[in-house]
């Protein structure tokens, strides 16, 4: 039982990190970003490279933990303005289908960009993982790094909540989510909110990637896997809702971990079963307000 809950929490933390940015970007920009997985991959590669370079220098070993978020921020700060100002801004107000396809094009471009920058051989950045050792939780032994992941996800969730509810910029973002036209009329600099939101969302994806990097071998193709899972999470939670992303991540995380331990055959489908079940009952997800139909 402890194992199921602990596994579920760890997986949920990972899910939240990879999907929070996606739902944030959708909430503000109304664009479902297929390239989100590529941003995750960029974060993973950037994090792994920094850790590998740093570890060769015999420096303070715990320094690697500061490199991972740094990599995420750098990725967000670079890709955010380039993608939002360079491409996406031409797509606002156009067909939702076209917006989806533009991000698919960006995904294809980034997919090869990663291969051209980092090559196709895997990167191993296990140093941070081994540093944390193991933790005894009631009757099970657990890798300490997994607990760090839970901590990071919790910090990200609380940070986002504080950002949207306490900070001035965050409130502007919320205002834009609720009514872009009225916000512009009240003097909100819409383009700036858009580019900042996109960069923040990209950083979150990269953060997920960077903190996953020490646990996996970073290879081409990790982007593709993430997108589908992240979609499932935000669709379950309700597109554009941060509470929804938390709820969706927890739901999927726990169900999947239960499936892994009790019905291993269902492991691959657990996510989609949850998604189909939720959509059957609530077609717009758990936390989304159904939109008014235009006649």
């Amino acid at each position, binding site marked *: 039982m402890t194992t199921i809950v602990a596994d579920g929490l760890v997986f949920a933390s990972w899910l939240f990190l990879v999907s929070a940015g996606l739902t944030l970007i959708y909430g503000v920009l109304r664009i479902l970003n297929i390239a989100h997985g590529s941003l995750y991959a960029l974060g993973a590669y950037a994090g792994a490279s920094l850790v590998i370079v740093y570890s060769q220098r015999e420096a303070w070993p715990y320094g690697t933990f500061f490199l991972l978020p740094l990599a995420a921020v750098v990725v967000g700060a670079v890709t955010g303005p380039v993608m939002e100002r360079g491409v996406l801004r031409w797509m606002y107000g156009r067909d939702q289908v076209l917006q*989806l*396809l*533009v991000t*698919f094009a960006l995904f294809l471009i980034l997919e*090869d960009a990663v291969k051209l920058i980092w090559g196709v051989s895997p990167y191993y950045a296990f140093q941070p993982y081994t540093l944390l050792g193991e933790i005894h939780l009631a009757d099970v032994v657990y890798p300490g790094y997994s607990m760090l992941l839970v901590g990071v996800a919790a910090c990200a969730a609380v940070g986002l909540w504080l950002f949207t509810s306490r900070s001035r910029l965050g409130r502007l973002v919320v205002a834009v989510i609720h009514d872009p036209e009225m916000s512009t009329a009240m003097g909100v600099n819409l383009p700036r909110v858009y580019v900042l939101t996109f960069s923040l969302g990209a950083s979150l994806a990269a953060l997920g990637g960077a903190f996953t990097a020490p646990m996996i071998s970073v290879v081409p193709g990790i982007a*593709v896997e993430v997108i589908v899972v992240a979609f499932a999470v935000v669709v379950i939670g309700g597109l554009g809702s941060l509470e929804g992303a938390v709820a969706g991540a927890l739901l999927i995380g726990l169900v999947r971990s239960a499936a892994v331990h009790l019905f291993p055959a269902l492991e691959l489908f657990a996510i*989609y079963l949850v998604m*189909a079940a939720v959509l059957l009952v609530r*077609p717009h997800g758990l936390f989304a307000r159904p939109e008014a139909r235009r006649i």
Partner: protein
Amino acid sequence: MNGLGRALPAVLLLVFAVLGSVLPGWLVFVLTLALAKGLVVLAVVVLMRAGLVSFGHGLFFAGAAYAAGFATRAWEVKEALLLILLGVAVAVALGAVFGLLAARYREIFFAMLSLAFSMVLYGVLIKAYTLTGGSDGLRIPVPTILGVVPQLEQARLAIYYVALAAVAVAVALIRRYSAAPLGYLMQAVRDNEVRVGYLGASVNRAIYLTYVLSAALGGLGGVLVALNVGHIDPNLAYWTTSGEFVFIALLGGTEGVLAPLAGAIVYELFKSYAFKYAPYAWQMMMGGIMLAIILFLPGGLWAPIERALRRTR
């Protein structure tokens, strides 16, 4: 539509029939692949006209291909036409079941739900190793066509003509559909679904029927690809495969029945060259082209041709 526009499909059919016997074998192979994928793209386009983007046509594509694969292995069915019928039947069955759910959703939810369906099939194909060979996939032997056993070197050509015939049937079918009340209804759904509802038509039923039709076309393309390549693997159901179809739809354009097919041919030719000369950058080129088309040529590659055809009145 003027005289030239009406005669165009027949002329093209003739040209392609001649091309088959003139072109070198590898090019015929690529063309067959393009025609088969063009059918799936057509399937995606039919839904797109109602404003629905399917990111999961890999479901029908792979479903039909695997149905054909199992039939050749388990029951030793070798007749291509039987395999095609079987594949399409399986795709229709899949469409009829999943359509019940999918027809209730619109926009992004439709796209994501269809993506999830195809990923479930992908998961099944990967997991059921003993049955499907897992990620290695299955080999499909050269089929017989109308009872004739083709020599290996002629088999490709034979499958090319089967694909061409299938395309001809599908084009005629979709033209009928577009001119039928259902086809018009779907365009109206795209423009304004609520009004269609108020006019007394069942939107969900129209979408459901179109979804099943689209599934059948997707399955047809899947069987043809399986017969042509002689090998199937779970990647046929992966969401990037479905994304490729949507991409081609955009590349060719979503008007008419010829645009998707033209898009598929351009795409396959471009892909085989790009993949040969830039294996690590071809996706990047594709993405760049896609961006350029969306930003500068919203109707796709076929749009200028369509305009030219309209002018020659």
